[in-house]
């Protein structure tokens, strides 16, 4: 924007702001006469003014907003007590530093009395100074630990050495669920496996009247050797909360998360609506957070995640996430469980972890049986393994069906129990998934200014009209294994045949192999960014996803090489590609643009779709 334009806009804005809507419209019309873009700019600014006021945007002070940063930094400063490798600390010897956060530091240590390895958390002095809260935290954490539930991290000792408060817990050699997810999706059996263990931990804790309050992937560890899940830090979330007043200390009433206007402590994305509003919380807040976590494991997407903290809160309070099955292939029953866990009103959620646990266990059982039936009746079974005795085979099948019926009725019972309020629902019977191909994609945009990256990259669910200064990356994923081919077709030219660039696979993408596995994320380009050329218009990125390898495309892509910048350098082969795309793109696949990604579905074994990238 030129300074002149800016001055012009601000002059009109200044006057328009004090007028009522009718007078404003007339004033804008008079001032902007036939300059529609000027008028649009002023109107947008007026709308932003309204929203900024409603949301109290920068209504507080920067220092208040940044207070936690300074506190944290303070803790990390030179005044902080740091243990060093080999140092004796009470009866512990420090072996290694595992990391640090605002609440303290974590070390790997050896307990010399009992000769065992422990994780040692040294709490920062600010936190441990609040004796009453520490007392409560110790109490809760101890109770949780004493439940001896295999999915709750065991606490060995609370103590103080040289005026430093520490907690010694069992050391888990593994990774947090956050690390494990690493932005990808998990397969259904693993999702169920993890969720069931988390809920088992919550069930035991809830029975002892302990609410975790901060269930999220960072607080769930998966042990390397046996994949046992451990829920960490029961009671710890309490320490970071701020009480509205000291009187309410005992009443478990409203806990205040706000540290400053517009900012809230704690990881927002998993917070329940009641938590986000700083209302009283109970066990049902953990149910919500578990639901959010399952949604993330299944889809790879955090359901409530806005550009700013206040956007995230608005989403938590108001947005209904895209149903699971619209994002990925998932059983309808899982979608129902997750939706119920994430009901905005706590009264409509599962009331106990046990109920949710029962539903997930029966779902798991049903899926196991489906898989068993599928396995034993699969025509792919090699001949020598086929049971040739028809009598025995029927008996086996009958036994399996009987099991399925029993499970289905347990399942139906639990559905009935948890769903009395919505009688219209029916129990889904296991059916073979229809033959179809599914792809999801999303786009990362990086703005550039004077050849330099400008602002942080952001993601889009699908296409927009791109600026020429935008550089993009396209991400593609499918829940199914298959053969993926991606071709770039530039804006139409006068040339007789359209030329295609093979974008995927290539020597730098997927090792020149078109086969991708289920859930594998393909990123184009892998390291750099896709730039638009000077030629304006619509670029097409053709996606071909097939159950089987496509012979004509395999041979056509041989005509492209790094020497030709992956352009198919053969008119005949370009025609083959063009014909193939034309022939197969007639059947328009279904597509749905969600909040964070676009899903395309096509019946049959082949999906052909063009992402249209318009730029100017």
């Amino acid at each position, binding site marked *: 924007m030129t300074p002149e334009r800016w001055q012009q806009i601000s002059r009109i804005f200044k006057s328009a702001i004090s007028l009522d809507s009718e007078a404003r419209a007339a004033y804008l019309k008079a001032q902007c006469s036939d300059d529609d873009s000027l008028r649009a700019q002023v109107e*947008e600014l007026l709308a932003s003014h309204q929203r900024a006021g409603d949301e109290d945007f920068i209504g507080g002070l*920067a220092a208040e907003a940044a207070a936690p940063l300074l506190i944290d*930094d303070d803790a990390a400063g030179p005044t902080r007590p740091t243990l060093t490798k080999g140092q004796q600390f009470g009866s512990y010897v420090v072996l290694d530093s595992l990391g640090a*956060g605002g*609440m303290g530091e974590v070390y790997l240590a050896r307990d010399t009395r009992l000769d065992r390895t422990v994780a040692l958390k040294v709490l920062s002095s600010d936190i441990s100074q609040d004796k009453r809260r520490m007392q409560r935290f110790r109490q809760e954490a101890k109770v949780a630990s004493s439940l001896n539930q295999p999915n709750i991290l065991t606490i060995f000792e609370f103590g103080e050495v040289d005026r430093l408060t520490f907690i010694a817990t069992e050391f*888990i050699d593994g990774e947090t669920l956050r*690390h494990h997810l690493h932005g990808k999706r998990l397969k259904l059996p693993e999702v169920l496996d993890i969720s069931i263990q988390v809920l088992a931990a919550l069930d035991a804790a809830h029975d002892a009247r302990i609410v975790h309050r901060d269930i999220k992937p960072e607080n769930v560890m998966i042990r390397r050797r046996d994949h046992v899940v451990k829920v960490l830090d029961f009671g710890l979330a309490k320490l970071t909360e701020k009480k509205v007043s000291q009187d309410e200390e005992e009443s478990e009433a409203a806990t205040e998360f706000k540290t400053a206007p517009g900012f809230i402590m704690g990881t927002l994305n998993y917070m329940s609506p009641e938590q986000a509003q700083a209302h009283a919380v109970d066990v049902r807040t953990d149910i919500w957070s578990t639901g959010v976590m399952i949604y993330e494991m299944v889809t790879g997407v955090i359901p409530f995640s806005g550009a700013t*903290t206040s956007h995230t809160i608005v989403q938590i309070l108001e947005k209904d996430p895209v149903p699971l099955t619209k994002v990925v292939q998932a059983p309808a029953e899982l979608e129902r469980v997750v939706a119920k866990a994430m009901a905005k009103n706590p009264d409509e959620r599962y009331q106990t972890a046990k109920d949710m646990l029962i539903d997930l266990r029966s779902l798991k059982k049903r899926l196991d049986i489906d898989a068993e039936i599928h396995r034993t009746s699969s025509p792919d079974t090699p001949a020598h393994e086929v049971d040739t005795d028809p009598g025995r085979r029927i008996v086996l099948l009958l036994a399996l069906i009987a099991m399925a019926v029993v499970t289905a009725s347990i399942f139906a019972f639990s559905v009935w129990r948890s769903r009395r309020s919505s009688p219209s629902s029916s129990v889904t019977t296991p059916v073979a998934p229809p033959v179809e191909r599914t792809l999801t994609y999303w786009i990362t945009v990086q703005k550039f200014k004077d050849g330099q990256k400008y602002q942080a990259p952001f993601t889009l669910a699908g296409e927009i009209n791109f600026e020429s200064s935008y550089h993009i990356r396209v991400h593609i994923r499918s829940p199914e294994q298959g053969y993926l081919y991606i071709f770039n077709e530039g804006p139409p030219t006068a040339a007789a045949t359209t030329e295609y660039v093979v974008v995927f696979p290539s020597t730098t993408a997927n090792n020149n192999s078109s086969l991708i596995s289920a859930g594998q994320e393909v990123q184009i380009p892998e390291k750099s960014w896709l730039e638009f050329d000077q030629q304006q218009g619509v670029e097409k990125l053709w996606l071909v996803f097939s159950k089987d390898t496509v012979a004509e495309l395999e041979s056509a892509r041989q005509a492209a090489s790094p020497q030709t910048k992956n352009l198919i350098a053969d008119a005949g082969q370009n025609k083959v590609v063009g014909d193939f795309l034309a022939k197969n793109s007639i059947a328009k696949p279904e597509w749905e643009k969600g909040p964070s990604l676009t899903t395309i579905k096509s019946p049959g074994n082949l999906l052909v779709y063009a992402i249209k990238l318009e730029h100017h």
Partner: protein
Amino acid sequence: MTQSPRQHEITALLAEWREGNQSALDELYPLVYNELHRLARRYMSRERKGHTLQTTALINEAYVRLVDQKNVQWANRSHFFAISAQIMRRILIDHARRHAYAKRGGGAQQVSLEEVAIVATDQGRELIRLDEALKALGEMDPRRSQVVELRYFGGLNNEEIAGVLHISENTVTRDWNMARAWLYQQLTGSGAN
């Protein structure tokens, strides 16, 4: 109050800067930065125990400590506030950057205590984005950008801002409205620009 040599020096530098000597600002900057940073840290640790951080109180305290009160002049005070707002912005953004870009990854296996660092990172990013948008605004419209700096980073009220910038309070309000709407648009991605 006894006057320290430092107070004397800072008061003199403020006067020089007010009279247009830019190099006085260069000398002033680190002195005020250190004091504000030290005070901010102290205030923050107090904040832990239930107080809220009052930027104005903090800058006031720095002012009383740093500037010779016998030679106090309104102009000195407003200049001190203007520079302090700028410095507070710098201190906060420095911290936010450190949080947004450092601290991630590596060895954080057992660490769920890292939660606070993660939150801070979120807030840090928001602050950094605001700072960048404010810079862009400053290029088009330095005064409006300064109004935001004085109010949001310096904690000054409209009357004080009017005094620092030699404009009317009404103008301060109007500048604030316009600047805030534009910043909001930049940060939320609404609008065509």
